C-alpha cells in the first residue's frame, strides 16, 4: 500500500493531536507526501478529539480520513463511532485500559494494549498515546529507531527536550508488544 490513512481518536488531553503530529513528522523525515488534519472547535475543550493523518508516496487528495487504514481508539466512544469505518483488511489499535469491549468486526486486525495502565506503571505518564503509536509502527512495516527519533526531535520543541527520552521509551514499549 503506497498510502496509509490514520484516524486517531480519544478524549481531549490524551495527546491525540500530538500522536498525529508525530506520524506526520515521521512522514516528513521520510520525505513522504502527507497531511495532518485535527478536529477543531469547542469540542476540543475536554470533549472528543480526533485527528486525520495521511502518509504516502502520492500527493494527498482529500486530507479527511473517513475510511482509515489504521484506527487508534483511546476511548470507547471512539471505537463505537469509527469501528465500522475502518477499511476491510485495516487495523484497529485500542487502549484496553479504557475500552473493555473487543472489536466486533472480523475483517480487520485488532490489537488491545493496556496503554494507560502501562504508562502509569512504567513512569511514562501521559504517554499512552505513544505506546499505541509504537504498536502501530511495528504492525505497519516495522519500528525504525532513526526515523522515530528524528520525528520526535521535530515534534517536541527544544523547550520540552526533557520529554524526548520518555516519548521514545513509550514508542519502543508499544513496538515491543
Amino acid at each position, binding site marked *: 500500500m503506497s498510502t496509509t490513512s490514520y484516524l486517531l481518536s480519544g478524549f481531549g488531553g490524551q495527546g491525540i493531536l500530538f500522536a498525529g503530529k508525530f506520524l*506526520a513528522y515521521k512522514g516528513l523525515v521520510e520525505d513522504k507526501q*502527507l497531511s495532518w488534519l485535527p478536529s477543531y472547535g469547542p469540542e476540543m475543550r475536554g470533549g472528543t478529539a480526533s485527528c486525520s493523518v495521511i502518509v504516502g508516496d502520492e500527493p*494527498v487528495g482529500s486530507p479527511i480520513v473517513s475510511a482509515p487504514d489504521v484506527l487508534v481508539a483511546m476511548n470507547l466512544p471512539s471505537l463505537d463511532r469509527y469501528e465500522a469505518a475502518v477499511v476491510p483488511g485495516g487495523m484497529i489499535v485500542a487502549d484496553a485500559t479504557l475500552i473493555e469491549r473487543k472489536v466486533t468486526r472480523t475483517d480487520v486486525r485488532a490489537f488491545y494494549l493496556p496503554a494507560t495502565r502501562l504508562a502509569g506503571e512504567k513512569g511514562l505518564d501521559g504517554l499512552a498515546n505513544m505506546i499505541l503509536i509504537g504498536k502501530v509502527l511495528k504492525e505497519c512495516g516495522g519500528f525504525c529507531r532513526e526515523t522515530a527519533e528524528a520525528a520526535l526531535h521535530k515534534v517536541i520543541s527544544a523547550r520540552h527536550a526533557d520529554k524526548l527520552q520518555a516519548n521514545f521509551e513509550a514508542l519502543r514499549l508499544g513496538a515491543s508488544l
Partner: protein
Amino acid sequence: MAEKVLMKGNEAIAEAAILAGCRHYFGYPITPQTEIAAYMAKKMPLVGGVFLQAESEIAAINMVYGVSATGKRVMTSSSSPGISLKSEGLSYLAGADLPAFVVNVQRGGPGLGGVQPSQADYFQATRGSGHGDYHMIVLAPASVQEMASLTLRGFDLADRYRMTSMILADGTMGQMMEPVTFETGDIQPPPEKPWATVGTDLRRKHNVVNSLSLVPEELERQNFARYERYAQIEEKEPLWESYMMEDADICIAAFGIAARVSKNAITEARRRGIRVGMIRPITLWPFPRAAFRAAAEQVHSIISVELSMGQMIEDVRLAVECRVPVTLCNRAGGMIPSPEQVLCEIEKAAEKENCR
C-alpha cells in the same frame, strides 16, 4: 531550495506575509483562523513589526486602512462573521483605491453559524462584500503550500492594482498541516506609492486618501476608471489548475477543500472507466471563465462541487452560457462532500450523458 517544513495552513499564511514584507497585522480572535493572530503576536515583535489585537473587526480593518494609507504592506484575517463586519472597511478601501491583504478562513453560516469548514462566503468575496461597485482579487488555496504562495502573490497583486486581495480559505485549509517550502526568490518589493499620506515635508501639495466624491459625474468617472483596471485584471490574472482534462467527458468545477475531495473521486471514477477531469479555479475573482468556456466545447456536463448551497455554480453557468448542463454536488453548514458523494454524481452524469 528552501527547507520543507510542516505547518498549519493558518501559520503558513502568517509566515508568508512576514516574508512578503508585511510588518503590520491587526485582528480580532475568531475560530478557525486564530492561529494567524497567535503566530503574528509571537513573530511580529521579533522582526520589528506591529501586532495589535483590535477592539473589533471593524476597528481592525480601519487600522489596516490607516497603515495602507501610509503606503506600507498590512493585513488582517478573520472568519466569516468577522468578514461581514469588515465589509464596511473593504468598501472604503476600494473607494480610496488602497491596497490591502485580507484572509477569510470560512466557517458555516449564516449568522453565528458554526465553526466547521464552509465555502458559503463565495458570493460575499467575489461580489465585493460591501456596498458599491467594486471587486477584490480572491485567491482560493487548495493546499498549505498554496496558502503560502498565494499570500506572497496576494500582497503583490494588491500593491500592483491598488485594491484588496483576499485569501478565501476554509477551516480545513486553515487547520491542516502539510509540508511547505517558502520560496522567497520571486517576492516583489512594493512599488513606489506617491499617493501615500506620510506627511508632505512641506515639499508637495497635500495627499488626500478619500472615498467621498459628491459630484456624481466625478464619482462615475472614478468608477469607470476602476473598472478599466478590473478589466485588465480579468484579462491577465485568472489562475486555475486543469486536472486530467485532456480526454475528459465530464468536468468537475471545485476549489479549495472541495477540489481535494474531488481528486479522490476522479481517481476512483477513472478506475471505473469514466473520463472525468477537473478545473480548479485558483482565482475566484477574476473567475477563469475562458477555461470553463473551452471545457464546454469538450465535455458533456459540468459538476460544481461546493461547501455551500451552490454559489460558484452561478459563475460556471455564466461562463459556459448554457452550452452544457451544470449540476451541483454540495454539502453545507460545515459539512464536507465525501469522495463517494462526488463519485455518485460523476456516475449519474456519465449514465445520463452515456459517456462511460
